[in-house]
């Protein structure tokens, strides 16, 4: 399979999967697209279908209602696909850990490439996380 390298990181299509979040992370993600941070200048854009996506942006503490849905969405994406856990809930579930309805942090369900902690992470933190990943992948292919 094609590995994720320079050719990919110049153009990332992002699919935003909200898995029972409190919506704060989602608002910060929208801030990244808005004029102040404008990630389209880095070649990233939001897409509507997981078939088009290179990046799966997951927010929220995954609960029993959405656990099979996020698995299905991950299977539906065209590979290679980067999974990004945005916010402390997706990274480690913080206060929802061992709750009666959550199904463990995201990396127990699907393989995660980037962790961006914060409650919610600032847009700068999200962009910094993606930039670090892009840098680490520069000479991978």
């Amino acid at each position, binding site marked *: 399979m*094609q590995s994720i390298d320079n050719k990919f990181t110049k*153009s990332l299509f992002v699919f935003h999967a909200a898995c029972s979040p409190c919506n704060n992370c989602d608002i910060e993600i929208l801030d990244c697209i808005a004029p102040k941070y404008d990630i*389209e*200048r880095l070649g990233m854009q939001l897409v*509507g*279908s997981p078939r*088009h996506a*290179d990046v799966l942006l997951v927010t929220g503490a995954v609960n029993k209602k959405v656990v099979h849905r996020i698995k299905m969405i991950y299977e539906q994406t*065209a590979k290679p696909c980067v999974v990004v856990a945005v916010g402390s809930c997706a990274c480690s579930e913080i206060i929802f850990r061992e709750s009666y309805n959550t199904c463990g942090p995201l990396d127990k369900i699907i393989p995660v490439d980037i962790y961006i902690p914060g409650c919610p992470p600032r847009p700068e933190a999200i962009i910094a996380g993606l930039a670090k990943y892009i840098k680490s992948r520069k000479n991978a292919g």
Partner: protein
Amino acid sequence: MEKIELLSYFFDYLVFPGLLFVVASGMLVSWIDRKITARLQWRVGPGLLQPYYDIRKLFLKEVIIPEGGNKWSFIIAPMCALISIVIISNIVLKYYIDPSGSFVGDIIVVIYMFAAIPVASIIGASASKNPYASLGASREMKSMLAYELPFLMCIMVPVIKTGSISMGAIIQHQLQNGPIFMSLSGLTAFITSIFCIQAKMGIVPFDYSEAETEICGGVLVEYSGALLAIWKLVKMSLLVVAPLFIIVLFASTGFRAGIFAVYFVLLLIVIILKNTNPRLRIDQALRGFWTYAAVASLTALVLAVTGY
């Protein structure tokens, strides 16, 4: 001698004004579109090579063929659409450069090829066995029914004014008598056809068949990898050939490079319309095209017949 003729055919279809030209200019124009959109929204916008990076990446990605769908229709549909674009661009640009080579009825070929693109997208979407895609396909079908009527009546205006159904004769008539849009009927038909090509290209406010935020990409929802890249190339190059077609029909002048100036003005109008209007519902579009646009184009047709 035959060998050279064959080579020139290959050159026409693969390089200029064929595949390479429509793809390269399509990427450039889609960059202009995205950049102007970004500037209108007070953003910085993507870099010049961004459409090229997008397409290159999509060609490297996995292609998923949906299970239970019709495999070959799904694969062939985007290619048919791209071939139609290449044929349109060949006829429009080649005969604009050299009107004497035109054959009678080529304008009808172009109209059919323009209709083949939405038909291909309907076939591809229906073959994917996805409910969102079938929703997109049904909207695309209604949209086609909506805009084809006023579009054809608009195209009738230059045909009536020049008395010919060949592109070459229409262009030559305009070189001698001035562009058609200088007359009252020509101007009405030209303005109406701008809205028709906006719907033809599937650009906001007529993007109901794709509608990313509503039906997740509609007709394109199941496409991935190289096939999605071909669809994106079709959309990009349609942004080049569709405005050029109506410009050649209505605004050819003695100053040959003038169509590019008109083209960029038209492109700017299309982009500003895109950024200042929300998406229409399909019933609103249908009503709009069958009342306002149809009446406007019928008026143009009557004016053209009576000689204005």
